[in-house]
C-alpha cells in the first residue's frame, strides 16, 4: 500500500535494475559531456588570460621605459642648451663687459627670450664675491666663497645644482660656468633657473592617471611634484637607485599590495634622477574590460552548453527508461498472455474430460428416475425420485461450471461477434460467485432491458470485465457492495461501470494506476492488470476512465463503440 514501495517495485521490475541506475546514468552523462565540452573551453580562456597578462606587463614596462627615455633626453637637452648658452656668454664676453649692469641685464633678457626658464644672472669673481647681479632679488655683494658649488665650479669649470629653496625662497636650480680663457682672471657666471622648466618637460608627457613621472635628487628629495610621493622638496619614500648607465625598469609591490612598474634613469647633466612609475590596474579587471567580446562568447557558450547537456541527458535517460519499461511490459504481456492461453487450454480439456462421465451420471440418474417413475407405488418411491432429481440438479450445476470453463478457454481466440453484455458480465461475475457468497459481497446489477448488443471480441471483453470485477472484489471489504451498470451512453457508445464501496484510491495513486507495474496490492499484484485492461480497451476502440474518493470507493467506466442495427432487419 505504500506508494514508495510500489514505485520502487515498479522500477525494480524493469530489467531488474534499481531506479538509482537512471539517476546515476543521468549524472554520469552530464558530467562527462560537460567535462568534454567545457574543459577545453576553460583551458583556452585560461591560456588567453595568461597571454594577455604577459602582454599587459610587457606593455607597462614598455610605457615606463618610454617615459624614462623621453624625459631623460628632454631634460638633458634642456639643461645642456642652457649650460652651453652660459658657456658661450662667458667665452664671448669679457669680464669687464659683464661687470656692466646694463650689459648683464640685456644678456639675461636675451637668455629669457631665447631659452626661457632663466630667473637671474650673477657674476662672481674668483674670491667668491658677487660683483654684478641682475634679477628680482637683491643679492649683489653676496659672497659664495665657502659654498660647495663654488668650489666645484672652480674645480670643474661647470656646475649644475639640484632643486633647492636657497635665499630666493622658491624652488629653483642653478647653472654656473667658469671663464677658462688664458691670461684672464677667473670669474664665474651663475644663472638661476625656475624649477617649472623641469616640470614642464614632465607635463608635456601627458601621462595617464596610472602613470607618474618626477625627479629626485640623490638624497631622495623630490625635484618636481609627484602624484603619489609628495610635493617639491618633500622627501620621497623611495630607495635611491644605484648609479646605472642608462635606465632600469623593475616591477615591485607597494606596501598596500599594489603592483607597480618602477623605472629610473640618471640625468647626465644634473645630479637628479628621473623616476617613472605605472601602477597596474587590477589585471583581471583589465582582462575583463579588454576581452569583453571573448568573455561574452565564453559565458554564452557555457550557458548554452549546460542547457543543451542537461536537456539532452534528461531526454536520453527518459527515453531509455521508457523503452526499458516498454520492453519489460511487452515481456510481461507475452508471459501473461501465454499463461492465460495455457490456463484456457487446460480449462477446456478439464471441462471435456468431465463432460463424459457427467453424461453417464446424468443418464443413470435419469434411468433411475424413469424406473421409479414408471413403477407402481412402492414404499420409498418419493424419496427415490427426490434423490434422482437432486443428482440431476447437481449434474446441471456441474454442466454450468464446465460451460464456463469452456467459455474461458475460448477467450484466446480473437474474432468479432455479437455480444450480449449483460450475459457476458453475469458469466464473469459467476466465476467469483462463491467468493461473493463467502464474503457476503452484494453484487447489484443496474442494467436496463433494452441494452443493445455490441459487436466485439468476446474473449478480450471477458478479460476486461474479469479484471475490473476482480479489482472490485479485491477493493471491497466483507459485506461490501459492488454495483455493475450497463447503459447506452450516447447514440453509438455503451458504458459499462463497475463501482465498489471500498477504500478508494488516493489522488497520487490515481494518476499512475494505468501505468505498467504500478500496483497497490503490494506483494500480491503484478501491477499489470489495469495496464493490460487499459491497452485492451483501447484495442477494442473503447476508453476507460476511473473516478475515486478516499473512503467512499472507486468506479471504473468503460465506453465501447457499437453500431445501432435494427434487430428485426
Amino acid at each position, binding site marked *: 500500500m505504500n506508494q514508495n514501495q510500489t514505485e520502487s517495485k515498479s522500477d525494480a521490475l524493469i530489467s531488474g535494475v534499481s531506479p538509482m541506475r537512471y539517476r546515476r546514468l543521468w549524472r554520469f552523462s552530464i558530467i562527462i559531456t560537460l567535462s568534454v565540452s567545457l574543459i577545453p573551453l576553460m583551458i583556452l580562456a585560461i591560456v588567453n588570460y595568461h597571454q594577455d597578462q604577459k602582454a599587459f606587463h610587457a606593455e607597462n614596462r614598455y610605457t615606463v621605459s618610454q617615459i624614462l627615455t623621453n624625459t631623460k633626453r628632454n631634460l638633458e637637452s634642456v639643461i645642456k642648451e642652457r649650460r652651453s648658452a652660459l658657456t658661450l656668454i662667458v667665452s664671448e664676453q669679457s669680464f669687464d663687459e659683464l661687470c656692466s649692469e646694463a650689459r648683464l641685464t640685456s644678456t639675461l633678457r636675451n637668455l629669457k627670450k631665447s631659452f626661457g626658464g632663466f630667473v637671474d644672472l650673477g657674476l662672481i669673481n674668483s674670491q667668491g664675491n658677487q660683483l654684478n647681479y641682475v634679477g628680482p632679488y637683491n643679492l649683489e655683494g653676496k659672497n659664495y666663497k665657502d659654498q660647495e658649488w663654488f668650489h666645484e665650479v672652480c674645480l670643474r669649470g661647470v656646475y649644475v645644482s639640484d632643486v633647492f629653496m636657497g635665499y630666493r625662497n622658491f624652488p629653483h636650480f642653478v647653472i654656473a660656468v667658469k671663464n677658462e680663457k688664458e691670461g684672464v682672471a677667473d670669474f664665474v657666471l651663475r644663472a638661476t633657473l625656475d624649477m617649472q622648466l623641469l616640470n614642464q618637460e614632465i607635463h608635456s608627457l601627458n601621462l595617464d592617471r596610472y602613470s607618474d613621472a618626477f625627479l629626485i635628487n640623490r638624497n631622495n628629495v623630490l625635484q618636481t611634484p609627484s602624484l603619489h610621493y609628495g610635493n617639491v622638496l618633500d622627501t620621497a619614500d623611495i630607495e635611491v637607485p644605484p648609479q646605472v648607465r642608462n635606465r632600469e625598469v623593475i616591477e615591485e609591490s607597494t606596501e598596500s599590495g599594489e603592483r607597480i612598474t618602477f623605472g629610473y634613469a640618471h640625468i647626465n647633466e644634473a645630479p637628479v634622477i628621473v623616476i617613472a612609475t605605472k601602477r597596474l590596474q587590477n589585471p583581471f579587471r583589465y582582462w575583463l574590460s579588454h576581452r569583453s567580446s571573448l568573455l561574452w562568447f565564453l559565458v554564452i557558450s557555457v550557458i548554452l552548453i549546460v542547457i543543451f547537456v542537461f536537456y539532452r541527458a534528461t531526454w536520453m535517460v527518459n527515453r531509455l527508461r521508457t523503452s526499458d519499461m516498454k520492453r519489460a511490459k511487452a515481456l510481461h504481456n507475452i508471459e501473461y498472455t501465454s499463461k492465460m492461453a495455457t490456463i484456457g487450454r487446460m480449462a*477446456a480439456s478439464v471441462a*471435456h*474430460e*468431465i*463432460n*463424459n462421465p*457427467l*453424461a*453417464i*451420471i*446424468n*443418464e*443413470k440418474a*435419469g*434411468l433411475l428416475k*424413469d*424406473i421409479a417413475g*414408471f413403477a407402481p407405488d412402492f414404499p420409498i418411491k418419493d424419496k427415490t425420485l427426490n434423490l434422482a432429481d437432486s443428482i440431476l440438479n447437481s*449434474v446441471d450445476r456441474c*454442466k454450468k461450471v464446465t460451460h464456463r470453463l*469452456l467459455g474461458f478457454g*475460448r477467450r484466446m481466440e480473437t474474432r468479432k461477434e455479437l455480444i450480449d453484455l449483460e450475459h457476458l458480465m453475469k458469466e464473469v461475475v459467476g466465476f467469483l460467485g462463491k467468493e461473493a457468497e463467502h464474503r457476503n459481497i452484494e453484487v447489484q446489477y443496474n442494467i436496463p432491458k433494452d441494452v443493445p448488443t455490441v459487436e466485439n471480441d468476446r474473449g478480450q471483453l471477458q478479460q476486461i470485465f474479469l479484471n475490473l470485477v476482480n479489482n472490485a472484489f479485491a477493493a471491497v471489504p466483507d459485506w461490501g457492495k459492488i454495483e455493475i451498470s450497463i447503459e447506452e451512453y450516447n447514440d453509438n457508445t455503451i458504458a459499462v461501470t463497475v463501482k465498489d464501496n471500498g477504500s478508494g484510491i488516493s489522488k497520487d495513486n490515481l494518476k499512475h494506476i494505468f501505468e505498467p507495474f504500478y500496483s497497490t496490492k503490494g506483494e500480491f499484484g503484478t501491477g499489470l492488470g489495469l495496464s493490460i485492461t487499459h491497452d485492451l480497451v483501447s484495442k477494442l476502440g473503447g476508453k476507460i476512465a476511473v473516478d475515486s474518493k478516499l473512503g467512499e470507493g472507486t468506479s471504473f467506466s468503460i465506453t465501447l463503440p457499437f453500431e445501432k442495427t435494427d434487430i428485426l432487419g
Partner: protein
Amino acid sequence: MAIRVLLVDDEEDFTEVLSERMMTRGLEVDTVDNGTDGIEMIKKKWYDAIVLDLAMPGMDGIETLREMLKENPDLQVILLTGRATIQKSVEAVKEGAVEFLEKPVDIETLISMITEAQKKKASLFEKRMEESVAGVMKKKGW
C-alpha cells in the same frame, strides 16, 4: 410404428443406459461402440435418426458422419459430444449433421430432436417416392 434410432458411442455405460431410457419411451434403439460398426448397421437397417458421438477411438465422429452420408444422404445424424466447441459444431453442420448437442443432455430434449428428425426423414422419403413414381410413370408413357 416406433421410431428407430442408432446410438454410436464408445462409452458403453452411456449407450446402455440411454438406450434403455429411450426404449422405455417407446423408441426402438440399436447401439454400437464404434463408427465402422455403425456404418455396417445403416447398410442393413432403416433408421429414423442416428445419435453419434464425436470423440471415438478409431474412426471419429466427423469421419463416421461423412461415410454414413455417403452411404445414405437422407440420414438424420445428431452429434452428441462432451467436447463441444463452436469450431467443431460448425464443422459438423457443414458436413451435414442436423443437430449438435453437448453432453450431458436432457433426455426429453434429445427425444424431441429425434422426433423432429424422424418427421424430416419421412417427408424426404415421401418426396423421393413421389419422384421415383413420377419417373416410372413418365417412362411408361402415363
